[in-house]
């Protein structure tokens, strides 16, 4: 019986093997033709939004980065206004009406032409849905023909192109097609492939792109808010590049040029402080400004910033201002002139009360590091410091005015013009109005700047205004962030040469 069973098992095994052999013969098929690997670029982004609707909130900044939306004009690497979807813009003699001519070749990714009607509807929609641009809803738009229309701004507005038409919030979308939140139809070199709200965004080549041939097949924008994660992802090859590289990561990348390409260019994000005129005397403010060593701070920040004189880069025509050199002896003399004397600890005091200034900061854009350095620089001349770190400046010291020195960071030059920064910083009732700087003379100059059409005169006015803030020791300008981008050596055109963060991939981006 056992022998019979063994024989049966051998037969079953033999049949199984035979069956396997037969199957193998049947499965032999010619090898498939090799498929060309798609060129997909992977980029890390620090922020992610819940919608791709370019007109709402700050989404337009990101749809521009993703290469999906384009604007009528764009700001070049040299800060000049350049045509994009529009070929030209002409202002009327009275400066109230602009005539915009669209590029007849411009079309959406679905093949529809970009017409005056659609552009006017887009601009009007931004005025309706975006709180920052409500003034646009008061403009009068008139269609001339399919590629020409006029905008009447109601008052002279020389910076319409830079402030509005080249702003990423004014990205043009086909409002009659697609889902504006998840897959808007736009004119850019890439179109949405998959969108995870507040997560990863994947775009693919726009086969109908009107302005050249798109070199990449697609781009994946990985959401990574943590700097160390980005560093490790770059080292492991998970991503091909990103911008806003930290000082530590920059040093690591620069030590291995065969694997990483690091590009550093001057940019427009400003680190500055406001001195509260309501709590600090003229001499104390003067002493503070004479003490702060911006070059020393830039050294600590490892090449991520450059020492600033004013809010704008020195190469810009509106960046021609001067400030006194660091002079701690003169700083101490200013304090002594104010009645302060040094106590046994080497710190200044008046009427038995030590001089201590309250420095408020938040932990971003290296402001916490700057606060620590300032504390040491002030202590060296005998000024005590109380450091107050907060999570969010916009809901604390900026709105309460409870500080002696407030550290802050903002993009000073959004569009190659000084008005945005000047208006935000120095206006009465502006962001820092509580610090007591605004004065009538400055206000009059800002009003003049608002409507001045001559570029040279605009620069002159801006220089005058900024110099006033320096001479009055109302502000201190510490550093201008450099834009630092890292990528694999073969990657090109990911916005590494643009000083603006809202330009990244384009048709010429390649890897």
């Amino acid at each position: 019986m056992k022998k019979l069973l063994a024989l049966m098992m051998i037969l079953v095994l033999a049949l199984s093997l035979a069956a396997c052999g037969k199957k193998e013969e049947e499965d032999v098929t010619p090898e498939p033709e090799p498929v060309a690997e798609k060129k997909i670029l992977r980029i890390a982004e620090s922020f992610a939004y819940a919608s791709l609707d370019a007109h709402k909130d700050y989404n337009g900044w990101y749809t521009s980065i993703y290469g999906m939306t384009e604007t009528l004009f764009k700001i070049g690497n040299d800060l000049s206004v350049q045509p994009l979807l529009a070929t030209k813009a002409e202002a009327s003699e009275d400066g109230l009406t602009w005539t915009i001519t669209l590029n007849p070749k411009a079309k959406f990714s679905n093949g529809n032409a970009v017409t005056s009607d659609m552009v006017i509807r887009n601009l009007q929609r931004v005025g309706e849905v975006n709180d920052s641009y409500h003034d646009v809803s008061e403009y009068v738009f008139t269609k001339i023909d399919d590629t020409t229309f006029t905008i009447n701004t109601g008052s002279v507005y020389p910076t319409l192109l830079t402030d509005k038409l080249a702003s990423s919030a004014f990205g043009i979308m086909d409002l009659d097609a697609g889902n504006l939140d998840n897959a808007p139809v736009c004119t850019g070199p890439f179109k949405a492939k998959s969108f995870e709200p507040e997560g990863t965004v994947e775009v693919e080549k726009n086969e109908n792109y009107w302005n050249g041939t798109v070199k990449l097949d697609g781009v994946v924008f990985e959401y990574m808010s943590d700097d160390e994660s980005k560093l490790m992802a770059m080292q492991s090859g998970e991503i091909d590049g990103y911008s806003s590289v930290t000082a530590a990561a920059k040093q690591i990348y620069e030590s291995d040029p065969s694997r990483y390409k690091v590009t550093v260019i001057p940019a427009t994000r400003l680190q500055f402080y406001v001195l509260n005129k309501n709590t600090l005397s003229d001499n104390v403010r003067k002493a503070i400004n004479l003490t702060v060593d911006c070059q020393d701070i830039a050294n600590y920040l490892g090449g991520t910033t450059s020492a600033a004189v004013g809010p704008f880069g020195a190469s810009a025509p509106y960046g021609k201002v001067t400030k006194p050199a660091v002079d701690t002896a003169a700083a101490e003399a200013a304090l002594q002139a104010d009645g302060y004397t040094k106590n046994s600890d080497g710190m200044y005091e008046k009427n038995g009360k030590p001089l201590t200034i309250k420095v408020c900061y938040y932990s971003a854009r290296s402001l916490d590091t700057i606060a620590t350095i300032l504390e040491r620089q002030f202590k060296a001349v005998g000024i005590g410091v109380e450091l107050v770190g907060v999570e969010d400046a916009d809901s604390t010291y900026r709105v309460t005015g409870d500080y002696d020195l407030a550290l802050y960071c903002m993009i000073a030059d959004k569009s190659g013009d000084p008005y945005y920064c000047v208006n935000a910083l120095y206006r009465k009732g502006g962001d820092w109005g509580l610090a007591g700087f605004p004065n009538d003379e400055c206000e009059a100059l800002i009003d003049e700047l608002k409507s001045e059409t001559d570029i040279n005169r605009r620069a002159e006015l801006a220089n005058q205004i900024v110099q006033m803030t320096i001479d009055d020791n109302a502000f201190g300008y510490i550093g201008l962030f450099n834009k630092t981008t890292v990528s694999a050596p073969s990657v090109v055109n990911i916005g590494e040469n643009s000083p603006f963060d809202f330009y990244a991939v384009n048709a010429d981006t390649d890897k």
Partner: protein
Amino acid sequence: MNILVDKKPRKGAKTRFIVFMILAGILVVLSVIAPKLAPNDPYEISSANINASPSAQYPMGTDRLGRCVFSRVLMGARTSIFSAVALVAITFVIGSLLGMAAGWYGGIVDTLIMRFADILLAFPQMVLAIAVAGILGGGMFNAMLAMGITGWTVYARLARAQVLALKREAYVDAARLSGCSSLAIMFRTLLPNMLGPMIVNASIQIGSMMVGIAGLSFLGIGINEPQAEWGSMINNSRAYIQLAPWAVLGPAIATIITVMIFNYLGDCVRDVMDVEAGE
């Protein structure tokens, strides 16, 4: 016989207790005399010495601002150890008093105190501490307050349980019949009898409080720069871990060693107490 407690004397319990007591004592002394021992000013920055590797001048190297890591670790010991010990002491006193009151008086007092403790215990301690510290802002006091909000509940529950067990004892009845007031009975009669387990618990808590405060500082919502504190030092140097690992390892190793010593000390206190209870 209490079946829950092994009352056999553990071998060498007292020896271990003495060893860890000495080690903890050394740490406390080191932290007290840290300013004298520090080879450099722990707050002095130097752009010429950024991320310098360990040397004779800087035994643990320097950090991203050129500060001496060893000096900052020494100064950080003072912050970390004293804040943890002070916090345990404060929560111990508050928790014990509330727990004793709840156990002794019972009724509405018991319900109010213990249900409030239950509410606080419903949240994980660290999550609640992060929320509180986030609302209050940075600083040592706020970090200690954030950790202390839930820290007292452990002692309150223990004290209450002890009082409930002890208040049926004959000597308590005797004290009551002899006309002693409630406060007198609680502090003169009950407290000495329940102090042992309470101290054991407190000594075990020192290590976890230290980790908690360092954790808040690591997250940026505890003790802030420029004050030297181990958690905040690790946080501020972690971006440079590939370039200057010493700036992270220094405070990290100090934290591990200190927490281990205090945890072992707590265990030894428990063992010694068990031995004494057994005897």
